[in-house]
């Protein structure tokens, strides 16, 4: 990042910076602190008035939550759905991005614009028809999409597709054409050139796209609330349902929230620098 000036900033600026950034840090981390500290409190300490410093520490909530609600099953569902959606979405995006980056063809602009604009539609608009479509397909062919993990995977893989294609096109464009042209001359087919040359060279971009797709699927609420039943419920819906009941073991809910956050927060911290790089490339274009 370019530095603003070679001279040190004046005290007024330094103090504004200190105060504003401190306030923002408190604002950002407050829920994280509440989540962590409450997850270590026994039940009687979270039913009374809130305490900043926990008086008694316990790890029981982390053990008990698996029995209070079927958290294990939610976990399996979320992992299966998010992983499958991520894998498929990445493969589909690699093919599409390869076509857009390396070939000229009629309808290329229409394709990219259409795909990107689907990102902007309100989810509620196609929730109802998609629900009926899945029910209809189920009635007509016996393929259970509604209420199954398959339907959810199919839905989620398209959610991350636009961003993934857009980002991968940028990555593929930055790889010199000479590399895959050389492979073609050596007798590779276009697909082998893609998987032997382009994919290995753009691995960071592919990892970033995969993390993004996983996070999208892991956190989705709207479609999961309609498309799942008791056995296919994901973490998002299972936890929400429990947290809005009248008598909630808040310490256990906080423990569960922390557990479900760890995989994606870790992923995001890895992704962060690719994301900034990708956005910068996009902004320059």
């Amino acid at each position, binding site marked *: 990042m370019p530095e603003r000036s070679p001279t040190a900033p004046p005290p007024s600026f330094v103090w504004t910076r200190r105060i504003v950034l401190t306030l923002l840090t408190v604002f950002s981390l407050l829920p994280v602190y509440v989540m962590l500290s409450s997850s270590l409190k026994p039940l009687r300490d979270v039913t009374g008035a809130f305490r900043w410093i926990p008086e008694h520490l316990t790890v029981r909530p982390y053990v008990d939550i698996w029995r209070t609600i079927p958290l294990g099953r939610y976990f399996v569902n979320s992992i299966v759905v998010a992983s499958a959606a991520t894998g498929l979405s990445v493969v589909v995006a690699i093919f599409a991005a390869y076509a857009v980056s390396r070939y000229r063809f009629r309808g290329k602009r229409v394709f990219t614009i259409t795909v990107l604009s689907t990102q902007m539609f309100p989810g509620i608009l196609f929730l109802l028809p998609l629900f009926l479509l899945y029910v209809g397909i189920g009635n007509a062919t016996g393929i259970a999409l509604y209420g199954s993990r398959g339907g959810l995977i199919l839905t989620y893989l398209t959610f991350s*597709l636009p961003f993934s294609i857009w980002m991968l096109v940028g990555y593929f464009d930055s790889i010199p054409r000479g590399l895959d042209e050389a492979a073609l001359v050596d007798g590779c087919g276009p697909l082998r050139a893609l998987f032997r040359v382009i994919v290995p060279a753009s691995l960071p971009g592919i990892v970033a796209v995969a993390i993004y797709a996983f996070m999208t699927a892991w956190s989705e609420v709207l479609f999961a609330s309609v498309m799942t039943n008791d056995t296919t419920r994901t973490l998002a819906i299972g936890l929400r349902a429990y947290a809005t009941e009248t008598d909630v073991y808040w310490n256990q809910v906080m423990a569960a*929230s922390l557990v479900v956050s760890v995989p994606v927060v870790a992923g995001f911290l890895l992704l962060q620098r690719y994301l900034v790089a990708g956005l910068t490339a996009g902004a320059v274009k």
Partner: protein
Amino acid sequence: MTTTVDRQAPPAGRDSGPGRGRRGLFHIPERVRRGGLPYLLLLPALFFELIVHVIPMVLGVVMSFKELTQLYIRHWWGAPWTGAGNYRVAVRFDAPIGRALLDSFLVTCAFTVLAVGLCWLLGTTAAILMQDRFRGRGVLRAVFLTPYALPLYASVIVWAFMFQHDNGLVNHVLHDQLGVTGKPSFWLIGDNSFFSLLVVSVWRNWPFAFLCVMAGLQNVPRELYEASAIDGAGIWQQIRLITMPSLRSINQVLVLVLFLWTFNDFATPYVLFGRSAPAAGDLISVHIYSASFVTWNFGAGSAMSVLMLLFLSLVTAGYLLVTNRTRRNRA
């Protein structure tokens, strides 16, 4: 164009080579391969987009003209047509359904304007303050991105706990510790729920503004700052005269994206309020959702969704028109 043709004409004799068996899965007739390969590569993406986005969109519009109530869910294509009936119900503002939709729309507009404004303000301020290197900058960046990295539902559940009446942090601080309120307030029901929703939404989305502005700042040429420093400009002047104007193009996209996300937001109010959102926090997506699934009147729900899409398209088109014109005039 020549290179494109060249790359699609594979060297002769390749298909009889030893590699053929391994490629069997991808074996495509020569004729199709020449012009068709890019389309074949796009096919999976097109297929999925079609099933999940395009066909449902078209169906949604069709459904909005049908009387699609509970009776017809199993055979929805057989539901009777009602013409513009669903739309008439949705916009008859003196009747309960239309009135509720209008209220929800107005709440959503107020919420969106405030949330987008605050997100932009916090994100831009933080990004500009963090433009220079200083100790701890990397750590702070990770801290600020944390709200955005957490799964939405998990963090909204934590906020719901913080907003609890008896055992929440917010009442503990405002009432017990600072004594601002005479008695503990309810944050998740009644009019206060608007502010709770606003706080959660801003907390969640301002890091995105921060991220975008940070990316935009990387493109400001350093020479501009150096030249202005030689001319005697202070840091505040530099921010006003150099930094802010060069953020204009990223702001155009950022504000639009924030607007669309915030306006369409479903998960935040749905997780924060549970089964039924209070009137002050009844965002339009949640409203349409409950209007459709509580009464199973999908026709009316679709009509409301189409109206919402029309509104968003109009605003987006108008916004792009105005901002592009202003940018051209300035240039």
